[in-house]
């Protein structure tokens, strides 16, 4: 049962001098009920923008978003609050200083997830229930965020997202600012909650290892476009897009030859008739400069590359750029 469908999603941000940043440039994917899809990319990949598009905090410039079969992309973000689908899609943020309201107790912060500013009697029951599920005790509920540890704050953020019983949970780097030991606990918690409640997950991260653990499928974004999408074990063990190969190769401890690919350029006014990776790709040929690749099936995955016949079993080691 397809829960979420994104078709050719685009988001452009205008810059001062008439140019535009194409943060998301034609992204398509689908998430089934209870399935977990990881979205990885580096800075400028558009993964945070994509998260906010799906969460309907911002409006797409183009493209379709369907939730449970109904189109939700055409309702402006400001009015989306009244649509019934609002409660079904929730977002867990990075555990930074501003993830929780510093002047609210943990209980009130969680109650915000129900759309309430004060904790009413009915809300309190739900808040206590979800708090217990994420491992927070009643004494934690009356604490302010600065009195809680990083791991506890992360739990409050998760409780806030789950208290409204969503069907799709989007997590935007939920453990990025946590210590490794705390991160492990939080990841296990998320995994357990997902299984128990059968929630679909959209897990956004820069960390391939976390996505490997938490997700069934993975989508690799590069400068707003999909490079590769497929089952997580396959994509990470045998990547077929040169960028994915570079990313995996650069992840420490992979036992693969390290690849230096230079620095990311921005996605300002990108050429529509070229592969955005061609300037840093050692396999680039003329066709890459003149024709944008589309996603094609390669085994069980989809890859957007003209040279997939050359990327099989390739050890990516040629440095390009600086």
């Amino acid at each position, binding site marked *: 049962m397809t829960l979420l469908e994104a078709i050719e999603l685009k988001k452009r941000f205008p810059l001062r001098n008439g140019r535009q940043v194409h943060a998301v440039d034609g992204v398509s994917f689908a998430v089934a009920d209870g399935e977990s899809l990881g979205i990885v990319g580096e800075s400028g990949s558009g993964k945070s923008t994509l998260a906010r598009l799906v969460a309907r*905090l911002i409006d797409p410039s183009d493209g379709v978003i369907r939730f449970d079969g109904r189109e939700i992309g055409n309702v402006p973000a400001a009015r989306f609050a009244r649509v019934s689908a*609002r409660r079904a899609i*929730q977002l867990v*943020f*990075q555990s930074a200083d501003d993830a*929780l309201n510093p002047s609210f107790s943990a209980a009130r912060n969680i109650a*915000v997830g129900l759309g309430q500013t004060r904790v009413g009697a009915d809300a309190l029951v739900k808040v206590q229930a979800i708090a217990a599920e994420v491992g927070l005790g009643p004494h934690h509920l009356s604490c302010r965020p600065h009195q809680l540890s990083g791991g506890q704050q992360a739990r409050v953020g998760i409780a806030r997202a789950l208290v409204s019983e969503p069907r799709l949970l989007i997590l935007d780097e939920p453990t990025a600012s946590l210590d490794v030991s705390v991160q492990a606990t939080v990841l296990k918690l998320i995994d357990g909650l997902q299984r128990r409640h059968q929630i679909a997950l959209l897990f956004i991260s820069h960390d391939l290892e976390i996505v490997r653990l938490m997700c069934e499928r993975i989508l690799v974004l590069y400068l707003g476009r999909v490079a590769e999408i497929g089952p997580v074990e396959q994509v990470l063990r045998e990547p077929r897009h040169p960028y994915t190969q570079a990313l995996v190769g650069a992840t420490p401890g992979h036992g693969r030859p390290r690849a230096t690919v230079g620095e990311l350029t921005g996605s300002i006014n990108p050429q529509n008739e070229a592969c955005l990776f061609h300037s840093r790709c050692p396999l680039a040929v003329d066709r890459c400069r003149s024709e944008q690749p589309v996603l094609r099936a390669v085994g069980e995955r989809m890859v957007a590359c003209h040279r997939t016949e050359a990327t099989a079993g390739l050890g990516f080691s040629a440095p390009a750029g600086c």
Partner: protein
Amino acid sequence: MSEAAAERSFVSPVRAPEWVAVALLVLMGSMALIGPFLVPYDAIATDPPIALQQPSSAHLFGTDQLGRDVFSRVIVSARVDLGIAFTAVITTLLIGSALGAAAGWAGGWTDRIVSRLLDTIMAFPLFVLAVGIAAALGNSVSSVVIATVIVNLPLYARQVRTEINRRRGAAYVEAAQLAGIGPFTIVALHMMPNLAPQLAVQASLNLGWAILNAAGLSFLGLGIRPPHPEWGIMVSEGAAYIISGEWWLFVFPGVMLLLAVLTFSLTGDALRDRLDPRRA
């Protein structure tokens, strides 16, 4: 000792004790609230035969040129001056915060209009504005209050505008939007409580300044008119007697002014230390 505490004491080892601010606040507060009921003499009643008497056991601060007891007048003035200052500061705090919050949240044209309005206000010195308003609305206490409110608006409006703007993209704000909470509720109930400490400090420091302003304006003849007692007027009238040596006419009200401003200055400092988030 924690790292943060060590760094703080390394940088600012000496602080005025908090109890001084509290003691002064209590003193000022009592003077304003219950002073008028406890003073020995009527602050307005004149008694020419005993004019210009030196401080004595009967008249602690002496008598002025019309035979009025200076001590009683000084105490009663507290209510007047503090009353004007508090009214003005609270009003400007509320209106200024509302303007700043609207500008900070909405951005665009709202922000542009509010900012230009604030810029215009900042171009006027208080006294020019006060004279203008007094000319338009008549010379009364309310004119002084209105003038003070307007002149102080930018102080709060700009601070709130910056803070709201800065926090607009905060994750907890987005979370509230995700839950369907409307912008008015978010700004008023979710974001403003985080600004309350800053604004409290700003307001308490502003109070000292407002008292000086009220006194200054009445010194020039705007606002409170004789025979009502007010520290500014008393200093103004007493200044005429410097040469002839009746120092008690202007020294006591002057010292009271100083104490009042000092009270709120110290309170502001103490509040700032106490509300320092790193102390929590």
